[in-house]
């Protein structure tokens, strides 16, 4: 199971700050994960797939939606930061 984390307004959009989820297949891409979420929760999927949202995998920023995900990954969705 992968762990998803939603920050900032995305946690409001999701109605939760985190969830565990079975990836559609092992070694899927973030793109495929987003498609799975869109099929289940279209509004949340659209919010997560916005170009301003960055994805971090195991606390490292991914450079694109082509990043490969596997079970036990921690996948974080980061909207634009407000700054400190």
């Amino acid at each position: 199971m992968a762990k998803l984390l939603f920050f900032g307004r995305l946690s409001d959009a999701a109605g939760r700050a985190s969830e565990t989820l079975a990836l559609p297949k092992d070694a899927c891409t973030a793109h495929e994960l987003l498609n799975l979420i869109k099929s289940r929760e279209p509004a949340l999927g659209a919010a997560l797939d916005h170009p301003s949202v960055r994805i971090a995998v195991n606390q490292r920023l991914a450079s694109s939606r082509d990043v490969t995900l596997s079970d036990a990954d921690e996948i974080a969705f980061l909207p634009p930061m407000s700054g400190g």
Partner: protein
Amino acid sequence: MVIVQAESFDAGAKINAFMQGRTDAGACVSFTGVVRDETQSARVAELALDHYPGFTEAALEKLVARARTQWSVGDILLIHRVGPMRPGDTIVLVAVAATHRDEAFEAARFLVDALKTDAPIWKKETAPDGSVRWIEPPAELSAQG
């Protein structure tokens, strides 16, 4: 040193402890950010800061390391509060000790500016009527990210 914490803290006591016994550093520049009761003419009853434990600390450590590379400073303290806060609460403290004032000012200024753009922190304002809004940078800025 970088500290991210939910607890309120005493900025003056932290500055004193930071400078304690430094007979080698003549200058300390500190920045204290306080929650305002009004931003962009909207009243604020509560400010809540969301952060990504581990990731946020690492990003702040990186900013501090960059400042230490760029300026000859003795030591840097960065304390950032997260979670719910009220107007008047101290949200952030940056303190830089250096032998010379120039470097202390420049490093502190760099850090405060860098926090604004590069800190993985998400702010939610709650108005006195209970309405909430997430603070995001203007579109030009976020496009760079």
